[in-house]
């Protein structure tokens, strides 16, 4: 996309000269670096509940964030008004942080490189509402048709289209158009007059609407949610204490996101408050484990052509054969740590300062047959799907809650168990990985990661793995 064709030039009449002037204003009190993050965001969502399309909502937000870096200091201001006087005011407020002569002389903006990972011709948000309404209706019907025990169905389809433009005092100007769509289905099942159980499924990515017609249909997600709820009707109490845990492929990769991903974000390591601080080159996992964060996978929810500081995203090796290789960097931390950026600077919106974040985090496949992994466990847990997770990056303790899991008895998957939280310690947990399957899968595209109040879309993935020791938070 060319600057002149962008919404910022065409609708808001911004010129390259304007951007250079605003950057100069931001550096008028000094400072090492400044950037402007322009965002034009369209959001929409449609919801069905009780077979009635009850909600349809749409939003427009536009704004610019101005940032000035001066040593370890950051000044930040934003405006939801793109008039020259309001942008200049934001630039002056952000400039307050710095003092003394600026290290930047003149700024001549040149177009920076970027990937083309989501060549979406028609963004879902540009399609007729009626075709998007049809998705939730189909999900509702399919879930109800799956089994008479399904008695409540809610489905939500949401998409957004984010136009971004980032200009920085290094002289780089980048633009991107980021579509994102997601369909999610929640159901309740009940048998006779027993207590209800829930099931959930969903997915999407940086895709066209045809993705939901051809690749992952509403029926696919609806059946998956219904199946999970029915399984849970027969669930028994979860065990408590340390045991062998087998994670199934795909979404259970949230383990990596919590156990190692957050702890490897460079801001925490620069400040030495992470359990992984100063541990590059050390063994933090069994040699079967290689963990990657990759923002360049086509059409994935966590992928980006450029990060929110204008850097092209990359494939970053976090752990290689069990050895910690590196951190996820943004501009500030990479400058202060004298290392290259990794394309990991992300933010929720123009109202937020960027920070190091994950994109799509996964473990490379190993050589074991997934069935052999299950057969190898005399007594343990087999976890197929999870709810959310969380980590304390300082002591390294992380949790993730199993929403569909089963007992393994004598090498066989037997009874489903009720929801339980699993807990472990980041730098230790992956040392107990004793088998890695050959069946790497990425998740369906539903993850949202929260950090310091900012939410961003992410992906995870993992093959089937066996962890010899992990604590399970059941009651039995």
């Amino acid at each position: 996309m060319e600057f002149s064709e962008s919404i910022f030039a065409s609708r808001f009449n911004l010129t390259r000269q304007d951007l250079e002037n605003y950057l100069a204003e931001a550096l008028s009190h000094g400072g090492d670096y400044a950037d402007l993050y322009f965002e034009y965001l369209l959001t929409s969502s449609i919801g069905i509940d009780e077979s009635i399309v009850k909600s349809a909502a749409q939003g427009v937000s536009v704004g610019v964030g101005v940032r000035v870096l001066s040593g370890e200091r950051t000044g930040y201001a934003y405006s939801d008004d793109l008039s020259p006087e309001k942008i200049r005011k934001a630039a002056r407020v952000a400039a307050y942080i710095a003092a003394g002569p600026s290290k930047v002389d003149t700024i001549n903006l040149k177009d920076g490189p970027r990937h083309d990972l989501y060549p979406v011709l028609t963004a879902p948000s540009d399609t007729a509402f009626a075709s998007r309404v049809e998705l939730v209706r189909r999900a509702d019907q399919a879930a109800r048709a799956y089994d008479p025990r399904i008695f409540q169905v809610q489905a939500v389809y949401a998409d957004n289209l984010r136009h971004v433009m980032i200009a920085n005092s290094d002289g780089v100007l980048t633009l991107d158009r980021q579509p994102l769509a997601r369909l999610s289905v929640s159901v309740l099942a009940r048998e006779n007059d027993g207590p209800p159980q829930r099931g959930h499924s969903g997915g999407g990515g940086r895709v066209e609407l045809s993705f939901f017609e051809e690749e992952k249909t509403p029926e696919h997600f609806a059946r998956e949610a219904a199946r999970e709820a029915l399984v849970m009707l027969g669930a028994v109490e979860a065990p408590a204490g340390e045991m062998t845990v087998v994670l199934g492929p795909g979404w259970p990769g949230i383990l990596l996101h919590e156990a190692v991903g957050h702890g490897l974000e460079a801001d925490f390591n620069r400040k030495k408050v992470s359990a992984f601080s100063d541990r590059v080159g050390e063994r933090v996992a069994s040699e079967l484990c290689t963990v990657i964060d990759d923002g360049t996978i086509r059409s994935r929810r966590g992928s980006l052509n450029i990060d929110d500081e204008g850097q092209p995203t990359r494939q970053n090796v976090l752990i290689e054969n069990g050895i910690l290789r590196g951190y996820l960097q943004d501009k500030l931390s990479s400058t202060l740590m004298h290392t290259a950026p990794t394309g990991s600077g992300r933010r929720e919106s123009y109202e937020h300062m960027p920070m190091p974040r994950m994109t799509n985090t996964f473990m490379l496949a190993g050589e074991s047959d997934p069935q052999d992994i299950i057969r190898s466990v005399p007594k343990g847990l087999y976890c197929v799907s999870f709810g959310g997770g969380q980590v304390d990056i300082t002591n390294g303790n992380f949790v993730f809650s199993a929403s569909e899991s089963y007992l393994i008895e004598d090498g066989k998957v037997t009874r489903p168990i009720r929801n339980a939280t699993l807990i472990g310690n980041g730098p230790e947990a992956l040392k107990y990985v004793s088998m890695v399957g050959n069946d790497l899968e990425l998740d369906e595209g539903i993850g949202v990661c929260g950090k310091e109040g900012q939410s961003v879309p992410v992906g995870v993935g993992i093959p089937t793995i066996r962890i010899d020791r992990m604590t399970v938070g059941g009651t039995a």
Partner: protein
Amino acid sequence: MSQNHLTELAVEVVKRALAAGATDAECTVAEGEEFSANVRMRELESLKEAGSRGAGVRVLVGKRTGSTSTSDLSPDGIARLVASAMELASVTNEDPHVGLPDPGEMGSISGDLGLYCKDVAGLETELKIETARRAEIAALDTDPRISNSEGASFDTHAGRHVFANSRGFCGAYRTSYCSLSAVPVAREGDSMERDYWDSLARGFAGLEQPEKVGSTAARRALRRLHPTKVATQKVPVVFEPRVARSLVGSLFDAVHGMAVYRHQSFLAGRVGERVASEKVTVIDDATIPGLFGTSPFDDEGVPSRRTVVIERGVLKSYLLNCYAARKLGLKTTGNASRGLTGNAGIGHGNFYVEKGVESPDAIIAGIRNGFYVTQTQGFGVNIVTGDYSQGASGLWIRDGELAFAVSEVTIAANLKDMFLGLDAVGSDLEFRGSVAAPTLKIGEMTVGGK
């Protein structure tokens, strides 16, 4: 914009929606200014300052609805806002329970609710930075083992909120708050732990002293050092007030009217029944001046009120907006909540467990072997079934005293049993947010460990 301008805008949006063919309409206009200063290792780390505005409209066309929001308040932006909402209403279905509140239900409580303090707007930047710096220095100076820090922050927010609907309701109020927090890191040998403490108030004068915030955070981090992972066992579990709040938050999720009508809550259909021990009384009250869950009216224009949710263990009321009330054949409790637009959801006012008579020390003193939880981790609460399983850390209770730090364990039970088995309620209720609880003791939970 002045309050008058915002109010005029809201009324204008409603008028335009009716002119475009809506049978009813509601409009929210909000404006806010935020400021944030972070200090780390005694030095200023970041400053953030900005303001924003937005408007949202929800139109009803018969029994169909459409909702839009925008940050573009220009005449063109407003025209698009209304036109898009009308278009959206045409793709939704008729929902027989949709509608605005009845005229008799609308209104606003009068009097000064203490939601806005002028002092917040006039604070000098240097004072705000210095306040954060004092908190962090107090944390760092508490003990030589506090050798690192994630910093201290001072934040302020001031805003205006306007709501108008086509049945003649129009109300506006101003809010402010400021907050101070510190996150020190304690380290000794191989053990590294962080914790936080914060103070939140409507005005600067209401904040705890920075030195108290910093030293409290430091003491909390220090007492977590060198934790043990205990063996798996069933014991009494005491929740300190900060984590008892999250337990009470789960109770809110269970009396949430939308979850109730969908049978998504383990408390659905149980009004009038015993759902907790006699020691438990739970109140939702959005009328207490100065508190964080207080407002003159809810997000449908219904006056705020006090609702007894659980009285001495018996479930008395759910929390409802107009929609959930109609679904359940009840009256709204004034708990409608939403952002700029959308069908109203349900929120709480000040949602709290009434204080009991026992001091926290006395509760701990009565336990021979148990777990005093100071942090929970995760999302392992299932409101449909009541299953509760969370990561936890805290201090082990041995012979009535806090004996040693514990972490990397889980606590699990079912919320139904937890509230029925809640056998001690502390006298230490403080409102540090819109959900509040004193120290709570659960008779027995499973601790998952070694």
